[in-house]
């Protein structure tokens, strides 16, 4: 186990403004930031958070849904001690994508045959995490941590099953995780996962899931799911699925 490291804001700003200058470091198979990492702004650490960097070396860049599930679990295993507030911190994620996870981030998100400017755009999107959406949806490592965190919140005893449902397609992920008001309400979100499991129609096509969520939004307004028994919420979800499939 080692301490969780992060970089200073000045180092982060410097990197962000120098993406094109460093484009070879990002793109080349042997590119690294190891020489820059010797500078003081690269090695701050959080004393109270320990991480196990071993799973970072096992990250698979192929990008299929099942691999995304496994990668999310690997990142969680490495960094489960981190709090949610810390997981919004750009300086932690930027350090990881430039040092410990640079090889994975490069192979997962930088495509061959793109111009320097196009690659620089990809770098700014997947190697930095300045805001909620970039952190949660785009940053090479942060998105995996947030997948796992939300799955843990919903299925503490079976994180993998929750991840498998949420990451079945990119569209389901975006419609589930990106709806913070839905995904963060545990009783509601758990019921959505349950209906996904027992009613194949809900996830059999991307459009079905979207239509289902529209009906849930339409009829769920003002319902205090937090106080309802699970069976009652399940009945509500079944009604919504029936309405969506009949439309």
């Amino acid at each position, binding site marked *: 186990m080692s301490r969780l490291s992060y970089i200073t804001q000045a180092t982060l700003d410097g990197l962000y403004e120098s993406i094109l200058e460093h484009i070879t470091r990002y793109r080349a198979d042997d590119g690294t930031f190891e020489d820059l990492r010797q500078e003081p702004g690269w090695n701050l650490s959080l004393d109270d958070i320990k991480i196990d960097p071993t799973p970072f070396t096992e990250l698979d860049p192929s990008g299929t849904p099942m691999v995304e599930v496994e990668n999310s679990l690997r990142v969680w295993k490495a960094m489960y001690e981190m709090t*949610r507030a810390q*997981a919004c911190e750009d300086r932690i994620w930027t350090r990881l994508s430039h040092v410990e996870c640079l090889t994975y981030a490069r192979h997962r998100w930088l495509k061959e045959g793109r111009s320097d400017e196009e690659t620089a755009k990809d770098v700014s999107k997947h190697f930095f995490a300045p805001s909620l959406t970039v952190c949660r949806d785009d940053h090479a490592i942060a998105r995996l941590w947030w997948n796992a965190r939300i799955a843990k919140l919903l299925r503490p005893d079976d994180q993998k099953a929750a991840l498998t449902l949420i990451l079945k397609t990119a569209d389901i992920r975006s419609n589930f995780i990106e709806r913070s*008001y839905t*995904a*963060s309400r545990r009783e509601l979100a758990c019921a959505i996962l349950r209906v996904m499991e027992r009613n194949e129609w809900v996830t059999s096509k991307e459009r079905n899931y979207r239509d289902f969520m529209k009906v849930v939004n339409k009829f*769920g307004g*003002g319902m*205090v799911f937090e*106080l309802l028994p699970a069976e009652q919420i399940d009945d509500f979800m079944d009604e919504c699925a029936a309405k969506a499939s009949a439309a």
Partner: protein
Amino acid sequence: MRLNNTTRFAHPVLRNDTSDYGDKEFTVELTTKEDRKTGKIIVEYVGTVNEPAIQDYIANDCAAAFLFIHCRRTYYSQSHPITLSGGSLDLGPGALLGHVTFRPIICAISETPELLSGSLHDEYQGLSFSFTNADVLAVGDTYWYDVGLDKLAPMETIFVLETLDEVDPDQTLVKLDGEKIAICANEVTKNKLHHMRNSVEGRHRLLNSVYLPALMQVLSSVATGIDEHEDKRWCQVLRSKATELNIDLESPSPESLRDAQKFLKSPLSRLFASEGN
């Protein structure tokens, strides 16, 4: 699917923006204490409800008060039972960050007897109501707090000067689609602006002639649709600072000039001071 001020119910709900129960009120006073080192939040609360029918429901364990706390950035969303006579909640370190909403609600927690209230609005007269578990009976005003250090970030950290050749000479325009508010100018104008930064007086002139109107435009845009921007880094900082400065970014009648001057700490005064006036 949010429970907010636009949510309407098919039964009377005690809230301050409707007259379902005449002039009766449900209020909860909140005080928030933040340990900036650990991120731990203590929320102290005390509430009152002066509608006798709802008081009776609570006294007879047919209803209870809750504080719904939601934090979009950390996916924290929980309902905490509260006692209206007062108490506190300990929201452990690291659970919250950025804009957090606190909404007090009274809900039925079991089958209730028929509602017997002398305060109901005329439109409910002659109708009979009873409630079941999770029905909303009262909604208090929402309270906001901003957790973390964004509220302390200097305003200049959310702006960036960018080159955009199609902008006319000595003109600027604002772009809001990035993580920072981009003030765009053509290369020559941008160089002039950079040059102005080299003196204190020049910086204050810039603040008044470029940043103040740019921020006014940003505030107008935010007032008409903050949802479009709220995931951007600049909007997170702006929202944090607005909470701290008691500025309502979503006011239906925004006063962009007044608020922009607040955000920029009275730029005209700063210019006068730098000129020795």
